[in-house]
């Protein structure tokens, strides 16, 4: 009977937790949290225009290294600059994966998205678009040069796999017009190119300029004009729904840009200049500052997440061991829920979901919170098992001396438990360090993210990954040495 009651309680608590956590985004999605015509006011008030883009799409948007620091460049960035100028605001670029852009827009993380985005009917359901500012000349197949004779048109790819950016127009085109081929979607172009070079895909479908940029910078690749038919080519600026005033302002800038032929005469030549520098100097040593910056963020994220994990984990462990049923139930529900959901989803949820409630939640803070909260569940279980491994006699001896429950834990139980669980905790910290790479999805400049930037800037896929791997290994190896040192020191004492 008692057991059944207990189970029901746990179920209820988890359901409660679920309903609380799901209620917010559902409501927000219904009401569309970004209210009508508020974005323009916000931009004018803060004198800041936040533009979201997926900077891996030269010559439209990509990164270049200038004096050791990252610079976002390309046609779309130039346009963003002009829009910001017309709005009297300072331009802030937020770089994230293409498939996160619309979510970021809907949740108010960015004011607009300029990222070679085509206004499709599906997208128009969730966001509004400006007029078309740029009409690309058509889709290209990017293939390996050795397959030059093999792949020339759609029918040659029958039975083969083609790559395209997840959520992109090209992805849809392959699905609709190349029914005999399979499609593989990846978030970043440079990963698609890697897949192409390693034979995972036979070709990648990208827009002309991009295909040519990659072919130009990599002599093993070839750009071939495709015979895919497009109904609605053209890129537009995406803006949250209901922002008519802002759309109008953006359209005015686009009118000006088109009248003065800025794209052909100013934007493209500027972008080409950066692409040349990128192709000229691809040596890794030049990108050392990228890796160092990434390393710094990874260390910061790890340290703060570990702190959150240990503090909250201890609290949850004590709650789980508590005799107070509601505390126990809450802790069990939390631990089971966190352990039962993917960390990637949790990170996206904290950044985009909790971002509804706290509008200026930065990606780094969101990443630290998400990883810390995740770690807390595992740390709590480690600590609980550690505490339970201490014989009951220890508590009794301490209590019989007049020590309170709290002092018993502090001076007698926790120090012993810590020694028992140290190896498990160490594992958890090392896992956490490695898992911090997941926050690259929300655009935190940690090591993995920086590595992807280097891949994009250098048109080289494998070497940056190898360097990242070596850096991660040096970090985890150092950490495990430090943990071993403390383990030995604690062993010394008995």
């Amino acid at each position, binding site marked *: 009977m008692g057991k059944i009651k207990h189970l029901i309680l746990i179920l209820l608590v988890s359901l409660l937790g679920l309903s609380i956590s799901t209620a917010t985004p559902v409501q927000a999605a219904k009401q569309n949290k970004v209210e009508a015509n508020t974005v323009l006011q916000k931009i004018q008030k803060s004198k800041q225009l936040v533009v979201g883009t997926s900077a891996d799409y030269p010559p439209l948007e990509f990164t270049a290294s200038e004096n050791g620091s990252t610079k976002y460049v390309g046609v779309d960035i130039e346009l963003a600059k002009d829009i910001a100028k017309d709005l009297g605001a300072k331009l802030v670029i937020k770089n994230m994966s293409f498939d996160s852009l619309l979510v970021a827009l809907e949740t108010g993380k960015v004011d607009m998205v300029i990222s070679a985005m085509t206004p499709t009917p599906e997208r128009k359901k969730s966001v509004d678009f400006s007029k078309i500012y740029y009409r690309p000349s058509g889709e290209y197949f990017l293939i390996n040069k050795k397959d030059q004779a093999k792949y020339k048109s759609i029918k040659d790819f029958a039975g083969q796999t083609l790559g395209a950016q997840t959520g992109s127009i090209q992805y849809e085109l392959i699905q609709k017009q190349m029914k005999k081929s399979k499609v593989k979607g990846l978030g970043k172009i440079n990963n698609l190119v890697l897949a192409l070079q390693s034979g995972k895909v036979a070709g990648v479908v990208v827009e002309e300029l991009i295909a040519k940029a990659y072919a130009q910078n990599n002599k093993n690749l070839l750009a071939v004009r495709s015979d895919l038919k497009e109904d609605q080519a053209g890129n537009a600026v995406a803006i949250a729904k209901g922002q008519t005033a802002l759309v109008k302002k953006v359209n005015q800038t686009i009118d000006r840009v088109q009248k003065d032929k800025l794209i052909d005469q100013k934007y493209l030549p500027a972008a080409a200049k950066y692409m040349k520098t990128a192709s000229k100097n691809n040596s890794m040593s030049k990108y050392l500052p990228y890796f160092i910056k990434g390393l710094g963020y990874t260390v910061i994220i790890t340290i703060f997440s570990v702190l959150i994990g240990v503090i909250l984990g201890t609290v949850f462990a004590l709650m789980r061991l508590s005799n107070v049923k509601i505390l126990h139930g809450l802790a069990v529900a939390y631990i089971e829920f966190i352990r039962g959901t993917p960390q990637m989803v949790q990170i996206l949820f904290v950044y985009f979901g909790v971002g509804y409630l706290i509008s200026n939640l930065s990606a780094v803070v969101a990443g630290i919170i998400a990883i810390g909260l995740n770690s807390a569940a595992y740390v709590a279980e480690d600590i609980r098992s550690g505490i339970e491994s201490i*014989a009951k*006699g*220890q508590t*009794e*001896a*301490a*209590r*019989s*001396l*007049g*020590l*309170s*429950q709290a*002092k018993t834990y502090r*001076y*007698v139980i926790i*120090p*012993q438990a810590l*020694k028992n669980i140290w190896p498990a905790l160490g594992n958890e910290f090392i896992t956490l360090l490695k898992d911090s790479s997941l926050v690259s999805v929300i655009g935190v400049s940690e090591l993995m993210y920086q590595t992807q930037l280097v891949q994009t800037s250098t048109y080289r896929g494998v070497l940056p990954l190898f360097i990242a791997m070596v850096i991660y290994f040096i970090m985890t190896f150092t950490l495990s040495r430090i943990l071993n040192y403390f383990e030995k020191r604690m062993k010394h*004492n*008995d």
Partner: protein
Amino acid sequence: MTNAMIKIDHLKKQFGENEVLKDISAEVDKGQVICIIGPSGSGKSTFLRCLNVLEHPTSGKIVFDGTDLAQLKDGKELDQLREKMGMVFQSFNLFPNMNVIENIKLAPMKVKGLSEEEAEKTALELLERVGLKDRAKQYPSSLSGGQQQRVAIARALAMNPEVMLFDEPTSALDPEMVGEVLKTMQDLAESGMTMVVVTHEMGFAREVADEIWFMADGYLQEQGKPEELFASPKSQRAKDFLAKVL
């Protein structure tokens, strides 16, 4: 009696359906040494653990220092009363993460708020008393069972308790170490300490106890001076038990 230190009144303790203590009333006087004997499973240890409320009694009263402990919930008041009742366990329960002197100093410093120097001074005196002054810096795992139990006694004494409870203090020891612990306890008894000892050491009980309590089946079957109880037990249960162990 007016000088009763602990007054136990209709004490009952149940674990689920299992009634371990079934109505026990008794008194412990100041300065008295009481040995509780009886067959295994008779409730001796449970009774002792009820005295400092490591087990919460199901019903009845335990009046100590004018307070009914049985009514107290876990908290400050109970902690303060426990300070005055030292307890020694069968399995020593020294804190393995601290050395000998740290084991002894912990409670005086963290509960009574003594300074490091004061606590150190008392601890060294107590270690001298139990003959282990030279082991102060060693960790419990490097001590023999007998030495560990003597440290445990010193640790309990460091709180300057009014009464000492011993829960089969020699049962986990190798035979050659029983003597040193009993000797320490005998010295303590002679110094006038009030003691309640659950034990199977009949020789010790006969020699040191002021009063023997015989427990069986959850009842206090018989109380008496050792010479009387050992020589001519009144109850049949006591006769059977003594016939087996003596």
